[in-house]
């Protein structure tokens, strides 16, 4: 796990630039840095040594010197691939997974991506063909950004490296902001930065002869809703799932350093930890976050699971003021505005892992997308159930069951519940039907956009753009699979794996590994009938069936508690951080020009007076504050610069 940078095109002072770009992402690879230059080409690498500790230095060239790679991530099946390559007469100079990619590319060209099982992004320079191949893993675990300037093509693991390139400026993309304030994340290749793009997951890019082309090499696919399933026996399906998940975990325990695990107290990380503990002969270290507020804290379940597994467990407390204390750093690493504070505790958690001397952790991320764990999947089902009998006074009561942790909902009448969830009004053949309440509810935050920003956006509709990106087969999928696709293809790489995942972990040089996102397991889960995943209103049914014997009943039967953190309440009240007042002052908001200063002042006042505000106000508060911090961090715009 590491970070890399590079360029392709005529350059002066290329090595100096590479060193500067690499230094900007040194946190991703604190163990060593290296650069490679050739006429018109440069690669830089910051290394976090995990596999091939003594001989895995990068950028790495093959024996001919004609192929050179800078690689971030892990190829988990590199042991098997190396044996196959050796059997075909290939000779290896290192024990690293990096060299495996070089050999595979030499044999298979771009098709080598099809045999890689891993979380990766890389740039591979082919001097024979004078082409640069860039690629990113299937689910979007590892990031890869790019831009063009003065005829030269630049790329990097994080945007902050690209901002080192002379002439590349940091300007907010208004459309990306609209997407964040509607969909929670920009739609790749768009990023928050107007001039910088992101390679989409499961895609490769070829830069050659002055042109750039991109194509997917894999896609997430679901069976047609009317097609007979190949999975008819639930017990057999559960056994196959268990075998795939065990193997996915086993190959993710491969490292030349100890591997730890996050343990949230929920089902998913309990399963990965339970599998991992049997594969860690020296014992497993587990890590979690605790909260002061009872509605967010899961420490009782964490301790129960740690005791049951016998792990060496550590927790970091996220107390009042802690989120505000780290939030500016969080935005420096997310490199995009966010509408929730949930990444902040994960920033603290990766810091705890680093303090404990580990570099690698397994997590349960991905299970909710792959096995239908999120509330939104149940909500989709209940809304469709209500829509079949509009005006029903009984059916909307089911919404209460979905959100026991939202007190505002528990007190509502059936009529209001139906209205909030659009249970009677939305067209059920809308491709975004499952997510409309979320998107509409989030888009209400755009109330705070300034007149100038609204003018720039004119009639832009982020949800419409998202709908335009859906594959042709989408209309033939079951409604659950449609909703799963929206989560797994967009929000997972756009927010969960980036803002909450890679960025928070790599801020402290920690590599997260995700057994549930093994592509073979993902493909298997996608092929399962919907009712094996969401049985009635019980989420992840087949996963529970497959792993029930591994967990204490209190964990195995636990209803999902969404991972959340205090939002606006983190930034108001006694001891509120000074920067919050400065960032949300009328002068500062007016200087940046994106939001209505008077409306923001009223929102700030409301949150101060009543910290228990609703979703829209919380999302708006965090979104506006993070945008103001983003602008200050990356563009230097704040009230003082305006005054100057």
């Amino acid at each position, binding site marked *: 796990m590491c970070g890399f940078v590079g360029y392709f095109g005529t350059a002066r002072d290329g090595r100096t630039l590479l060193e500067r770009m690499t230094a900007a992402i040194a946190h991703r690879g604190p163990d060593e840095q290296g650069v490679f230059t050739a006429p018109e080409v440069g690669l830089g690498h910051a290394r976090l040594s995990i596999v091939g500790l003594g001989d895995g230095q990068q950028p790495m060239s093959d024996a001919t010197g004609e192929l050179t790679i800078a690689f971030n991530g892990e190829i988990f099946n590199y042991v098997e691939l190396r044996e196959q390559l050796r059997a075909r007469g290939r000779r290896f100079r290192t024990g690293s997974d990096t060299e495996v990619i070089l050999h595979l590319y030499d044999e298979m060209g771009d098709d080598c991506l099809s045999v890689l099982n891993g979380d990766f992004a890389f740039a591979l320079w082919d001097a024979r063909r004078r082409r640069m191949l860039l690629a990113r893993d299937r689910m979007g675990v590892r990031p890869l950004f790019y831009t063009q300037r003065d005829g030269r093509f630049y790329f990097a693991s994080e945007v902050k490296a690209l901002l080192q390139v002379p002439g590349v400026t940091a300007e907010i993309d208004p459309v990306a902001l609209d997407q964040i304030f509607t969909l929670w994340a920009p739609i790749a290749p768009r990023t928050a930065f107007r001039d910088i793009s992101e390679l989409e997951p499961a895609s490769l890019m070829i830069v050659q002869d002055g042109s750039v082309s991109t194509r997917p090499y894999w896609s997430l696919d679901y069976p047609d809703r009317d097609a007979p399933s190949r999975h008819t026996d639930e017990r057999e399906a559960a056994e196959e799932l268990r075998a795939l998940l065990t193997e996915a975990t086993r190959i993710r325990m491969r490292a030349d350093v100890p591997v730890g695990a996050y343990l949230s107290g929920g089902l998913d990380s309990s399963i990965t930890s339970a599998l991992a503990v049997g594969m860690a002969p020296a014992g497993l270290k587990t890590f979690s976050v605790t909260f002061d507020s009872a509605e967010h804290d899961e420490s009782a379940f964490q301790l129960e699971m740690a005791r049951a597994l016998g792990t060496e467990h550590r927790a970091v407390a996220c107390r009042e003021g802690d989120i505000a204390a780290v939030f500016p750093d969080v935005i420096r690493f997310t490199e995009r505005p966010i509408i929730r504070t949930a990444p902040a505790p994960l920033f603290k958690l990766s810091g705890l892992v680093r303090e404990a001397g580990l570099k690698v952790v397994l997590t349960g991320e991905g299970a909710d997308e792959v096995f239908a764990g999120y509330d939104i999947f149940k909500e989709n089902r209940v809304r469709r159930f209500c829509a079949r009998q509009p005006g029903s006074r009984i059916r909307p009561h089911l919404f209460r069951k979905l959100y026991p942790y*939202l007190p*505002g*909902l528990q*007190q*509502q*009448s059936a*009529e*209001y519940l139906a*209205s*909030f969830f659009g249970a009677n*009004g939305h067209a059920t053949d809308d491709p975004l039907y499952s997510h409309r309440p979320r998107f*509409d*509810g989030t*888009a*209400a935050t755009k*109330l*705070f956009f300034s*007149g100038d920003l609204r003018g720039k956006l004119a009639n832009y509709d982020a949800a419409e753009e998202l709908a335009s990106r859906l594959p042709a087969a989408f209309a033939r999928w079951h409604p659950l699979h449609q909703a799963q696709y929206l989560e797994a293809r967009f929000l997972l790489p756009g927010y969960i794996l980036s803002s909450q995942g890679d960025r928070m972990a790599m801020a402290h040089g920690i590599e997260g590994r995700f057994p549930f996102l093994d592509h073979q397991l993902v493909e298997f889960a996608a092929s399962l009938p919907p009712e094996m995943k969401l049985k009635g209103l019980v989420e992840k049914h087949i996963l529970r069936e497959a792993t029930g014997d591994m967990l204490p009943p209190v964990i195995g039967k636990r209803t999902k508690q969404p991972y959340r953190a205090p939002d606006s309440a983190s930034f108001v009240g006694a001891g509120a951080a000074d920067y919050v007042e400065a960032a949300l002052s009328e002068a500062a908001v007016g200087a940046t020009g994106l939001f*209505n200063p*008077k*409306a*923001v002042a*009223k*929102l700030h006042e*409301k949150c101060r007076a*009543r910290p*228990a*505000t*609703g*979703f*829209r*106000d919380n999302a708006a508060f965090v979104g506006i504050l993070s945008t103001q911090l983003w602008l200050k961090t990356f563009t230097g715009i704040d009230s003082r610069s305006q005054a100057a």
Partner: protein
Amino acid sequence: MTDTIRDAVKGFVVENFLFGDTSQALADTDSLIENGIIDSTGILELVAFIEDRYGIAVADADIVPANLDSLARITAFVASKTPATA
């Protein structure tokens, strides 16, 4: 009387849910939910405002869109509950 109630309710909605933003006209019959003005927490804020301002108790059975989902409906509902101020 209803004009007074309507103005007070509109003032509350504009200040508390629109944060003073009057760039988009809010018609008396516009749905507060469908226009993204109010969410589940907002309903409870609205009910608290009505109870505090008009000294009436809003029964659970009355907290329905038919009574509270537009300025006109809220105005009519409050007027029906406050005959003494007529």
